């Protein structure tokens, strides 16, 4: 049984620490821990480049995977992903609007805060619209929600394109950066919004495991066990929206991470949600650290946007998952 397999948090924590260490030491200029004291050039690389970047990868990866795990549980759909629900598109549109107004280079200091705020508002608006359009009566229609998400995402994409045409050169560059998520512009301020939010979310949701499990019974039967279904749905969607929006605000759109990580966790640790959210945070952080490492090393000294890399890995994974679910569905009917 799943309980016998344990929470897996220790193993995931260890993997995360290894990935974090690797992200600090590896790169176009490899660092050796024992030589740090003697090498004066090593400290700026570590302190000004690698450490903020690794911290940002940790927080963005954890936020996206946690949001994905929440959305998959709340929509009762293993194919749900922050990017598919319009959350990412809305956040990108909000951020692009602020950037095109001339907030200028994303990398510069406190610009990250209004941009993050606009991304959050955009995401909130998009997700509210998707949930409103995807309703059947008083209840969420899950395929309706997904279809509405696709449509809203497309509209947001068109809006971003329009803003790009209107924006000046500087704005154009920062908006383009948005569409292919990247951690290349990490500095010490960019992890700040998530550094505050993520621990609070983990604390707030620490006892949600049983509720998310019961929720899988369906609105009605979960309610029979005394679960406040509507409240869980509202808070959960709000948290998933908040985390995605903050992640998109500081790193642009990094797709499929929120889809892949929870799926892998189901395979590794079973279907129970008891430890799912902290598991997702650790595994998401690890995966994005490794993906970013790959993005830095593959074409060194040039680098790939990490969002492009996760899309390259995630697209085929999504299709494989879809085929698997469809062929299973046929097997059920036979």
């Amino acid at each position: 049984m799943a309980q016998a397999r344990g929470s897996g948090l220790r193993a995931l924590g260890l993997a995360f620490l290894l990935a974090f260490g690797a992200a600090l030491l590896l790169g176009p200029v490899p660092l050796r821990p024992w030589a740090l004291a003697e090498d004066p050039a090593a400290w700026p690389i570590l302190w000004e480049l690698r450490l903020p970047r690794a911290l940002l990868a940790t927080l963005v990866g954890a936020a996206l995977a946690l949001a994905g795990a929440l959305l998959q549980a709340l929509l009762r759909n293993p194919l749900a992903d922050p990017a598919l629900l319009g959350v990412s598109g809305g956040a990108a549109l909000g951020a692009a609007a602020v950037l095109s107004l001339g907030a200028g280079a994303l990398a510069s200091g406190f610009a990250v805060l209004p941009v993050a705020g606009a991304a959050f508002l955009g995401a909130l608006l998009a997700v509210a619209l998707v949930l409103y359009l995807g309703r059947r009566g008083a209840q969420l229609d899950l395929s309706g929600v997904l279809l509405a998400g696709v449509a809203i995402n497309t509209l947001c994409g068109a809006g971003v394109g329009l803003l790009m045409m209107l924006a000046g050169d500087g704005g154009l560059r920062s908006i383009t950066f948005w569409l292919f998520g990247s951690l290349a512009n990490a500095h010490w301020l960019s992890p700040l919004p998530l550094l505050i939010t993520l621990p609070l979310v983990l604390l707030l949701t620490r006892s949600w495991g049983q509720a998310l499990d019961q929720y899988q019974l369906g609105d009605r039967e979960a309610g029979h066990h005394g679960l406040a279904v509507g409240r869980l749905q509202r808070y959960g969607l709000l948290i998933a929206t908040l985390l995605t929006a903050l992640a998109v605000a500081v790193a642009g759109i990094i797709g499929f991470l929120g889809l892949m990580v929870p799926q892998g966790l189901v395979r590794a640790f079973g279907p129970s949600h008891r430890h799912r959210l902290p598991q997702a945070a650790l595994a998401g952080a690890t995966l994005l650290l490794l993906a970013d490492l790959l993005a830095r090393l593959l074409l060194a000294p040039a680098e790939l946007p990490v969002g492009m890399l996760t899309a390259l890995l995630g697209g085929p994974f999504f299709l494989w998952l879809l085929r698997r679910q469809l062929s299973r569905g046929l097997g059920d009917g036979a």
Partner: protein
Amino acid sequence: MTIEGAALTVQGLSLSGLPQPRLRDLSVTLPRGQRLLLAGPNGAGKSSLLDVLSGDVTPSAGTLHWGAGARERWADRRAYLPQRNALAHPFSAAQVVALAGVGASEALDHLEELGIKDWAEHPYPTLSGGLRRLVHCARVLAQLDRLAPEHGWGFFDEPLANLDWRFAGRVLTALGRRAEAGYGMLLAAHELNLALPWAEQVLLLKAGQGEAFGTPETVLTPERLATHWGVRGRFEAEPGGGRLVLDGFVGGP
């Protein structure tokens, strides 16, 4: 065995619906600690009544009285097995039962009571329809057992559908055991040949109205079997149960 003052009293219950009202001015007092069968042809309002009694649906008129000391939260008043289940998540059968808030070993006990312990570790979505239904039945029994017998009600909407006779017998035995312990037990079923011998009292619904409430032989008269179900037959009471004797369809073989 009836526990005084703890009956569930329904007064003037109505529930609007289309094309006709689902319940019309239904009044009945349901005693606790008895095996109660909710009978009636398709569309008579059985599920609607269970929905109202379970708090899923607010009636358009009428009141429910749960008796002295009734609990505030619906989840502490009743356990309910609705006619359909929506679960698709790949929990194991034992994990589904544990959703009632019981531990792993208690979940296994409930699966064993219904004779499906061997399937405890199987993923729920891969089980057959009948087995899936039994898993939910075990989950609802687990929830019921967490309530106090003097306050708890168990509502079961067609738990026997799609079950073979052995499993149907297991379910009926399990429900009877809860009635004996003092729980209120109301079972809706179309399998009258199985459920009538089990029942101590029958509430017969017809077009949303309560037509009769009493022992099986007083309620299931040959006339009612013919007009409501279109069969020729009679219920023969015997010590320790009785049996439904059917001679065929009215105007048919």
